[in-house]
Structures are given as C-alpha cells and as structure tokens.
C-alpha cells in the first residue's frame, strides 16, 4: 500500500508532509513571535498550509478561496490595522513572558489534546454514498438552488460588515 517515493502519489505524500509542516510553523510563528506583524505573516503562512490541506481534501475551490480571502484579504487588513494601532511592540514583549505564557501553553495544550483525543478515538461512520463529487460546478449549482439563501445571506452579512466597519472607523475620525 505504501507508494514509492517517486511515484506521483509518493511525491504528493511528501508535499502533504511539507504542507503540514508549513501549517504548523505558520501557527507557531503566529502565536509565539513578539512582533505582531510577524505573527500576521505567520498566519498567512499557516493559511497557505491550510489551503494545501483543503486541496488534499478534494476541494481546490475552497483552497483557492482560502488563499484569496485569508491571505489576500484578511491578513492584509490585519496588517493595516497593526500599522494603525500598535506598531511598536516593545511593551508587548514585556508582557509576553512569565505566567501568562505558561498558562496559555497549558490551556492550548489541553484543548488540542482533548480535541485530538476525541477525534482519534471517535467512531466516525463512513459515508454511505457520496451524491456528487463536490466540484466547483456542484458548489455553484447548490448555491444557486439549494443554498441560495446562504448566498444572499453572505452578501447581506458582508454588507453589514462594510457599513458597520466604515461607520465605526469613521466615527473615531477626528473632526467628525
């Protein structure tokens, strides 16, 4: 069952390992560095990895969306926010050490262990049959038919987000 390293499957396996590595490293950078901008970069790296995982999960469309939305949009926005709000990290560095760090590690470790344990030991039922292949076209089709509400809902949510954020951001503007 083990594919040879140089077959396409084998190479894919290697790539998968690399992706896991990228995801993990990204996550570590995102949480452990002192400078916020670095953690945003870490977050972006992590998302690239996650996008790869999605690809392996048979949904290239979601993978691409992950890149576009998270890396291209969310991370950039966060970076802007950092520029605006807290560019100097000296103060943060001071508070990073010590108790809170330990506490955080314990919390994070516990949560991930619990989840991982549950996941591994859970009795997951294999699906009966898959009704469609989950491709882009199918997503589109279901967005147009079955989940059209979701489709419109998304736009409304985002409209609200735009309006809200613009209003909020402008509210603090000096002179207004």
């Amino acid at each position, binding site marked *: 069952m*083990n594919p040879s390293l140089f077959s396409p499957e084998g190479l894919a396996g290697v790539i998968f*390992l690399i992706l896991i590595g990228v995801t993990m490293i990204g996550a570590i950078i995102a949480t452990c560095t002192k400078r916020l901008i670095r953690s945003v970069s870490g977050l972006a790296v992590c998302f690239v990895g*996650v996008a790869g995982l*999605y690809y392996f999960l048979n949904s290239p469309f979601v993978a691409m969306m992950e890149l576009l939305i998270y890396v291209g949009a969310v991370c950039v926005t966060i970076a802007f926010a950092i520029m605006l709000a807290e560019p100097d990290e000296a103060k943060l560095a001071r508070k990073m050490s010590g108790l809170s760090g330990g506490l955080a590690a314990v919390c*994070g470790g516990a949560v991930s262990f619990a989840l991982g344990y549950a996941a591994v030991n859970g009795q997951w039922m294999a699906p009966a049959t898959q009704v469609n292949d*989950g491709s882009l076209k*199918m*997503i589109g089709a279901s*967005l147009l038919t079955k989940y059209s509400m979701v489709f419109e809902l998304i736009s409304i949510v985002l409209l609200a987000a735009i309006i809200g954020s613009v209003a909020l951001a402008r509210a603090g503007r000096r002179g207004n």
Partner: protein
Amino acid sequence: MMLTLSTQLNTYLIIGAILFGFGIFGLVRRPSLIGMLIAVELVLSGASVNFMAFNRFLAPDPTVGQIITLFIMAIAAAEAAISLSIVIAVYRNYKSIEVEDLVELKG
C-alpha cells in the same frame, strides 16, 4: 505510512485540533486585541479544517461542508472587518490595544 497520511481522516482531525489549540494558546497569551484576533482566526481555521475533513470523508453530500466552510470564511472576514474597526476605535479612544489597560480604564 508517512506518505499516505493524506488519505486518513485522523491526520486532518489532529491538525485541526492542533490549530485550534494554538488558537486557544494565542488567545490566552496575547496581551493585545489584534494578537487575539489573529488567534481567533487560527481557531476558526482549525474548525474549518475539521469541517472539511468530515465533509470529505464522512458526509454524504460533499458540497455541504464546503459551503459551510465558505460561509465560515465569509463570516470570518466580516468578523475581522468589524472587530478590527472596533479595535481601531478602541485604540483611538484609549491609546492602547492591550486588554489590561482597557480593564484598568474601565475601573
């Protein structure tokens, strides 16, 4: 064995869990609001990975999970937009985005 990891559900679940864990870790550890937001994004993506994994291996209709993931993304984006503007508003008013400082100011 290592090379076939990608075909196993557990791999994804564990990755999801670890991401989730990192998210929690960051959430507790980060003193600043934006840092916490970053952590939250990690948590969300951990959840999404799980969703996608279940979707791939267990769901009868693989579009559902994807659509939910997409929805999560949209929500995450909206959330990021709103929360960042809140952060900025807070920052403007209190000159700090550190949680402790905010608590102090409230008191």
